[in-house]
């Protein structure tokens, strides 16, 4: 492999992929072809086999709520004045019902990251997962965060953006996270009913009051057009009205024994009647179809093309990618009527994407995953340990602090304490690298290729034990960048 192609292979594995594994660069073949191959099919992963569907979780959640209600009423009658129990019985119940599933969900995600042979496709999955961020901070959405990625993102990551968008916005994770399930049209039949029959207050199902704009706003601002692209507060409100009725089966329906084949449910009685005007276009009242039509138009709007192209170029090329690159990518996207592979192809064929200056700072998740892949660190059966590492580094899985997701800009991750913790994690990771046949110098060459600088090499050579050399490799500046 000559110098230039070694650089290209390294970028394919480290900047476009999840981090090189030993021997991977040599076996890559043509890096561009290798990447293109991964941008064609849905991103499937055998590790996900057998995980419950959202609709399964939803049924069991109703069961949980019923049992929790009973726990509470028991507690209220028997131990009104007793101090809080050491082991919160509600938490215990939740973990009994869902703990093992959550462990499997997180474990599968770690296993995929560490083991995948299609790391570009997986990086795309993670990119879109962060683009359509939900957070387990919202307790009611927590069960559905991992399924959102599995059910809505993976099947569409190499398809039409409109399909991806629709699958995400109708997913229980997003409906719950951005309060869409609570939104009803002020003039809907449901609103009129509730005005006459105010139901009893209930923690699990507080009374519905009216319109909630949260999802509509974030779709415009974060998921499609982007902030500052010219939409108005009226557009937000009108879109929120169009979205009314997009909901989920309620716990009481499930407790009554009704069955559902999807966790998404359109409730016509909650839909705000009437024609909606969004971005100057009129949408006839076709119930559920009204918001679908809006989403379909948003997906191929020029502002959306620009927004997606910028975020993707920022993710793969540079914090501030050249406007020309973004413009070309947006054009390819629009020309293809919103096909994501066209967007990816424009990126992969851009000279900027392969310039020696192209580089990105590894986010904490990238850093830990890259270390696991480089060192062949076994994931083991307990994802909680790795999640603990991410918590300390500031990027726990499915837990960003806002619907904007985690930052993709180096300056947000480069801070003294953050670097210090990386050194600690590098050391801890190095202790999990299998030692049989371990040659840290060769490993450094294999994963960093021509990006392994002389000074890092020298530091590796002076290490007092292979484990320490691996810690130096993981903690070195050269390993913090996707080059």
């Amino acid at each position, binding site marked *: 492999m000559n110098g230039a192609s070694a650089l290209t292979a390294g970028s394919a594995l480290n900047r476009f992929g999840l981090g090189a594994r030993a021997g991977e660069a040599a076996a890559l073949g043509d890096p561009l072809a290798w990447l293109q191959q991964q941008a064609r099919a849905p991103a499937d992963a055998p590790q996900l086999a057998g995980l419950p569907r959202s609709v399964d979780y939803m049924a069991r959640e109703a069961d949980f709520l019923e049992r929790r209600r009973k726990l509470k009423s028991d507690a209220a009658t028997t131990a009104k004045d007793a101090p809080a129990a050491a082991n919160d019985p509600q938490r215990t119940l939740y973990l009994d019902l869902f703990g093992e599933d959550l462990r499997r969900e997180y474990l599968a995600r770690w296993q995929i990251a560490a083991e995948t042979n299609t790391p570009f496709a997986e990086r795309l999955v993670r990119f879109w997962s962060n683009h359509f961020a939900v957070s387990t901070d919202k307790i009611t959405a927590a069960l559905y965060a991992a399924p959102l990625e599995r059910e809505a993102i993976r099947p569409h990551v190499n398809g039409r953006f409109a399909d991806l968008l629709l699958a995400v916005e109708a997913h229980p994770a997003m409906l719950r996270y951005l309060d869409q399930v609570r939104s009803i049209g002020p003039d809907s039949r449901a609103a009129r009913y509730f005005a006459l029959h105010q139901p009893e207050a209930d923690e699990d199902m507080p009374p519905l009051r009216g319109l909630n704009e949260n999802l509509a706003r974030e779709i415009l601002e974060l998921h499609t057009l982007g902030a500052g692209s010219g939409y108005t507060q009226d557009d937000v409100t009108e879109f929120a009205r169009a979205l009314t009725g997009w909901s989920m089966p309620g716990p009481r329906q499930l407790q009554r024994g009704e069955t559902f084949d999807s966790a998404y449910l359109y409730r016509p009685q909650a839909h705000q009647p009437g024609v909606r005007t969004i971005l100057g276009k009129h949408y006839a009242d076709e119930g559920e179809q009204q918001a679908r039509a809006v989403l379909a138009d948003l997906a191929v709007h020029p502002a959306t093309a620009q927004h997606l192209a910028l975020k993707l170029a920022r993710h793969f090329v540079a914090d501030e990618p050249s406007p020309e690159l973004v413009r070309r990518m947006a054009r390819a996207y629009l020309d293809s009527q919103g096909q994501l592979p066209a967007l990816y192809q424009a990126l992969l064929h851009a000279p900027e994407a392969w310039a020696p200056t192209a580089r990105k700072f590894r986010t904490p998740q990238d850093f830990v995953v890259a270390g696991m892949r480089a060192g062949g660190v076994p994931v083991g059966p307990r994802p909680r340990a790795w999640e603990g590492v991410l918590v300390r580094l500031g990027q726990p899985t499915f837990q960003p602090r806002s619907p904007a997701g985690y930052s993709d800009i*180096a300056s947000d991750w480069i801070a003294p304490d953050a670097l210090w913790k990386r050194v600690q994690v590098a050391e801890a990771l190095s202790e999990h690298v299998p030692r049989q046949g371990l040659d840290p110098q060769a490993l450094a060459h294999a994963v960093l290729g021509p990006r392994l600088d002389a000074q890092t090499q020298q530091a590796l050579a002076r290490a007092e034990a292979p484990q320490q050399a691996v810690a130096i490799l993981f903690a070195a500046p050269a390993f913090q960048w996707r080059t």
Partner: protein
Amino acid sequence: MNRRRFLGTLGTLGAGAATLSLWPGISAAATGADTRLLVLLLRGGLDGLHALPPHGDPAYARLRGPLALAPDGAQAAWKLDGTFALHPQLAFAAQLYGRGEFMPVAAAAPPYWGRSHFDAQDCVENGTDAPHGAQSGWLNRAVAAMPGVEGLAVAAVMPLIMRGTASVETWSPPLPQHVDPVLLQRLEPLYGDDPHLAAAFAQALGNQGAGMDEAADAGMQMGETGMSMKPGAQAAASDDRMAAKALARGRLPALMKSAGGMMAAAGGARIAFVEDYGWDTHANQAAILVRKLKELDDAYSAFHDAIGPAWGKTVVVTVTEFGRTAAINGTGGTDHGTGAALFLAGGAVHGGRVGGQWPGMAPGELYQQRDIHATTDLRAVFKGVLAGHLGLSDAVLAEKVFPGSARLARYDGLLRA
């Protein structure tokens, strides 16, 4: 201030004796089987001339210059005999020595004398006469020779010494909170060259000591510059605080305490392995070893307290992959050498004396004019312990545990009769 520090700081024999009397030495022979063996590997090359200073050797003080230690003066080493002493920080070890439960062996080395860390550690662990001489480790093969016995490796991944067919469990504490100061030392110049990361990293190093009063109370040397890469004698205060923090977080005592706990019960682990890093002292050796030897001494003490009455039937063998150059180098440190010190500790050890044959430090006595000439093969000591303490036969030792070592006699008399 905790008790261990109290002992370490003041070196009060009375207080030490009170601790020791909790577990009076009971000979292994008296208790029959169920003996315990722990091997502690100090990776990086412990300087035997610093831990076990040969103050009586006429060439020692001249070769060592400012690194030389003496059994008198302000920083007095613990005098063991006319030739040897123990580093001032090894206070608990010195007390064990006084009770006959600690035995240094001078000028020991594995059969590989090539001065590469990785190859020398490989040789120490694989138990043959060369690096990569076996794919399994001698301690695993010793476990295999003892039906019904399981090994314990205090490590996240199986180290070579415990690799093999016998059943060995690994155990490691949750994420370590400390950072190896040597690692920081290696990283600082790398980060200094990255314009995007240099400032943040420098500040990270500076921040780490904020509010480290506890460590300061522990009486560490604020002049320690093990982590300071700045030239000159005056290290920045921030570096000192960082040193303080790292010092307060030594991991070895915690690991040894855990190992002791797992070996304490009647059915506990009989054969265990613990490893430590950070012994490669090319610069600022005096300050670094004040910290590291204190950790080692605290580790012995923590293990002693954790294993309880089983201490009486225990041998702890502390080894390193090589010793260091006889002479001090130009940066206040020493470079890779050959003959090193090893330590035996435990109630089953026939200690209170220094073992091995001292080859001397005169010009004609040094190996290649620079290192202590190794006069004891580590494997001879291992054989002596495995035979006397665990009852392995000479045939098993020569063929299975240390293959090809039939002509290497075991070191006898290490254990109490």
